[in-house]
């Protein structure tokens, strides 16, 4: 198969990330759906002045405290973050990004979550901008064009694209077709479609034809590199016995 996208190490997968790259990172409120090993590899690789687009800025402490993309902030690799949930819920445990944002070392673009998702989706879809009702009359509206549609004021929002997307999926076939497990999916499929180079971190890489075509969520054309996770991080996961897994092949 000419289209083998498997990369054997995470180091190799992120080796070409240049300084100043814009990177989307799949992420929500915990370790599920976060490309943990790609993030660790990017820290070791050391690219700087990055723009990170993700739901959080890492380390929000909502669930388990673990080494998510907060380490890129700790390692001073980030210039700007576009996020919806950049701060920790508990003031006693601020995210590493918080101090850097307040000190003006990292620029923050704070975005409502639905607007962030749609900006990414539109970036993928070739739609440069759109109007949304969310944010009118709040700080989000500052400096934005407002138009009324169907008797509702709406804000102009611009699409987002990236140089790289780091995504976490459950299984990939060798062509890069991806399926996701449970709420792991979140931002991953839309980010996979919105970047020039998409790198997927997966539990398992299977032969072409082993994934049900009807079940594929991210078509392989959006995925450039796939890397298999080799270590168990010890988070609670029941890959062999959850109720939706036993229905898959």
């Amino acid at each position, binding site marked *: 198969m000419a289209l083998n996208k498997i990369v054997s190490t995470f180091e190799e997968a992120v080796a070409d990330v240049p300084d100043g790259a814009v990177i989307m990172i799949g992420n929500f*409120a915990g370790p599920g759906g976060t490309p943990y090993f790609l993030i660790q590899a990017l820290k070791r690789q050391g690219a700087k002045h990055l723009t990170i687009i993700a739901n959080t800025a890492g380390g929000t402490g909502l669930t388990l405290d673990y080494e998510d993309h907060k380490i890129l902030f700790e390692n001073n690799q980030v210039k700007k973050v576009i996020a919806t949930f950049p701060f920790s819920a508990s*003031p006693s445990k601020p995210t590493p990004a918080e101090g850097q944002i307040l000190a003006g070392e990292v620029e923050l673009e704070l975005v409502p*979550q639905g607007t962030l998702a749609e900006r990414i989706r539109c970036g993928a879809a070739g739609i440069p901008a759109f109007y949304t009702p969310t944010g009118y009359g*709040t700080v989000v509206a500052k400096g934005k064009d407002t138009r009324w549609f169907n008797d509702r004021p709406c804000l102009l929002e611009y699409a987002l694209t990236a140089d790289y997307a780091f995504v976490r999926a459950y299984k990939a076939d060798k062509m890069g077709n991806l399926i996701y497990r449970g709420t792991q999916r979140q*931002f991953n499929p839309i980010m996979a479609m919105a970047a020039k180079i998409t790198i997927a971190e997966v539990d398992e890489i299977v032969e072409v034809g082993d994934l049900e075509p009807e079940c594929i969520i991210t078509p392989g054309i959006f995925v450039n590199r796939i890397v298999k996770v080799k270590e168990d991080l010890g988070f609670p996961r029941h890959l062999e016995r959850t109720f939706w897994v036993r229905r898959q092949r």
Partner: protein
Amino acid sequence: MKERLPREAIAMRAAKELFNGAIVNLGIGIPTLVSSFIPEGIDIVFHTQNGALGFGPVITAEEFEEKADIDLVNASGQYVTPLPGMCFFHHADSFLMIRGGYIDITILGVLQVSEKGDLANWMFPGRGVGNIGGGMDLAFNAKKVIGLTEHVSKNGKPKIVNQCTIPLTAPECVDLIITDLAVIKVAREGLVLKEVAPGWTVEEVQSLTEPRLTIASDLKEIEL
């Protein structure tokens, strides 16, 4: 000091607003407790921002070993129970459901709520920072917005105010306010006091509320 309703009772009262088949999204804080008090015989389809519909309650400590899975969490990152018929989708579709008006009821926490139903709940008080998260899309777009809160802040200041003094989540969005002292409807003519907590008088509730309350003709005691 007179007794106020505990957080669980606020959640219990909020659960009475749910109806059979409702698609419901619960915010962080007191609202997450609502899923434990769904009235008998009512089926609710829970929605979460991170892309799931139709999942079950948050798992208990005893269920942790057996059921906790990082790939099945709600918007607060809590582990939830899998149920037959639940489904998963990506974030853009999840907010399509919110923005598109498919969420019947959202129940959100409150820092301040105004006479007109303006909601402020995202900026951490005193920290100068905050997370907008998914709450703004919910407050703007859900069919019904219910705000749950203690009636006054920790230092005794009213949280139901004439005008919000902290950054808004959404203007004129709240339909119903449920507190540890009262149930208040946001109506065109202003705030209507519908129910008061056992042992509290209308005057006492009014004294802890900035805007003037209209008293509902069918005013009653809060029943759980």
